[in-house]
């Protein structure tokens, strides 16, 4: 009998944290003109317990199509392998000069599908050395709690255990990461509003240019 009860108690103790209702956090992001901010990455890092090891994600891809990177912003966890399919009709030369991951893939012809593992946290800026206007960002995170804002400017982080968190908001046009401390109760559906001071979007001109008078 004792042999049966002890494993059951042990099993209940192990299972107990999973029975606690997870909290969620909905971040609403607006710019100085109160317009929703898309493509921002909101992440939450626990402050009052050990870091949770974030597993690498599967099936993440940054496509090259119509001489653009799609999507513009991608958030992944450390160790994630990102595929770069060239679904365009032209060659590309993908590169990154960012400290967390420096790499380049020259002679990247249509149909190429190579992957790169992002093994250090930070923001990686992608470019194409042939088409200077092509730009995209990969945000590599150590925490498993993150989300990217959609066109309505909201990002929802779910399955957060109760506790204190440092919530960070990153966006390509944000000069400095916006940070806030948030405390979440069991099962809470919290919401936080962020008003972001974004810089002007100064992307490289892509449209075709005219020609001279042909004198």
């Amino acid at each position, binding site marked *: 009998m004792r042999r049966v009860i002890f494993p059951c108690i042990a099993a209940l103790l192990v299972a107990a944290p999973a029975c606690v209702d997870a909290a969620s956090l909905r971040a609403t992001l607006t710019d100085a003109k109160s317009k929703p901010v898309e493509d921002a990455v909101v992440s939450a890092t626990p402050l009052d317990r050990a870091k949770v090891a974030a597993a690498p994600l599967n099936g993440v891809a940054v496509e090259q199509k119509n001489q653009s990177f799609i999507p513009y912003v991608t958030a992944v966890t450390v160790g994630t392998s990102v595929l770069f399919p060239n679904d365009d*009709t*032209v*060659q590309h*030369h993908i*590169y990154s*000069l960012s400290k967390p991951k420096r790499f*380049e893939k*020259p*002679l990247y*012809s*249509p149909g190429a599908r190579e992957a790169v593992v992002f093994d250090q946290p930070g923001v990686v800026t992608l*470019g194409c*050395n*042939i088409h*200077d206007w092509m730009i995209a960002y990969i945000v590599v995170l150590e925490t498993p709690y993150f989300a990217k804002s959609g066109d309505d400017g909201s990002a929802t982080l779910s399955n957060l255990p109760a506790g204190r968190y440092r919530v960070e908001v990153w966006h390509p046009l944000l000069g400095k990461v916006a940070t806030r401390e948030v405390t979440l109760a069991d099962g809470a559906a919290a919401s936080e509003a962020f008003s972001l001071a974004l810089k*002007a*979007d*100064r*992307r*490289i*001109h*892509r*449209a*075709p*240019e*005219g*020609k*001279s*008078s*042909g*004198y």
Partner: protein
Amino acid sequence: MKSCLGATAILGTLMLTAVAPAQEWRMDATYTWATNLSRTSYAPDRENGALYDLTVAGAWHRQINADWLATTEIDATAEQVHPFPLLDNNSITGEVDLRRKFGLGPFAPTLTFSGKVGYVDYHDPDRSHDNFQLATTLGKRLTESWRVSATGTWNDERASAATYSIRNQRLAVETAWDIFEGCELSAGASRWWGQLTANANEDIFAQAEAGSLGPVVADYYRSVAHEHSNAYDTDWLAYRIDCRADFWWVGASYALNDNTSIPLRYESAYVVNRAQVSYRSEFWSLSVVHRF
């Protein structure tokens, strides 16, 4: 024979593009209003005109290695000149560019070598010519929105008539600034040395030859290649000058989207021939450029 040279070069370019994997098509419709289109020194005789251009161009890009990019382009243009139909022309040009980029990223400087071969078929057959051009461009982007470039060009136009066979060299600097998303301002200047074809009323030219503008001008005008031309009127002639020409231009281009833009451009040319006789021409142009 000369047109065969142009056609052969274009055929070679076409064959090269057939094996290249990438392609991009572009169409350009331009209206230009030109003052002193006739390139005439004697102010009362200057003729203005309107030019209507339609260009279709196909470009093929191929990266040779991490640093070098080859671009091959075929460009076909139809131009109507109002009210001077003898100046109407069709042209086809093949161009190969080799671009060396010194490093990664948009701020890396680039050095581009270009070779261009073309044929321009005028309604006035004497003006039809093969065109050969070599150019080198050094470009640098200073910020996301500001870039500069300098270009040296050697240009050779070979017509059946000496008057229209010209050779000149050009140095140009240009800068472009994206003032806000979708709107770009550009400005540039160039100096040309070499030959151009100008036009004059035969009476005025005869007076210059006779010494009405002094012995230096008379000697010079007697020495230049010239021939009768009905392009601007029945009693006109065209003549080839050795000259120095200064150009400057400003432009504004508004992008409707990533592939379509509307450039507006003003260009001024000031030409001084070896006998110090000068003329000025101006061009206002509005285009619609679309990349497919």
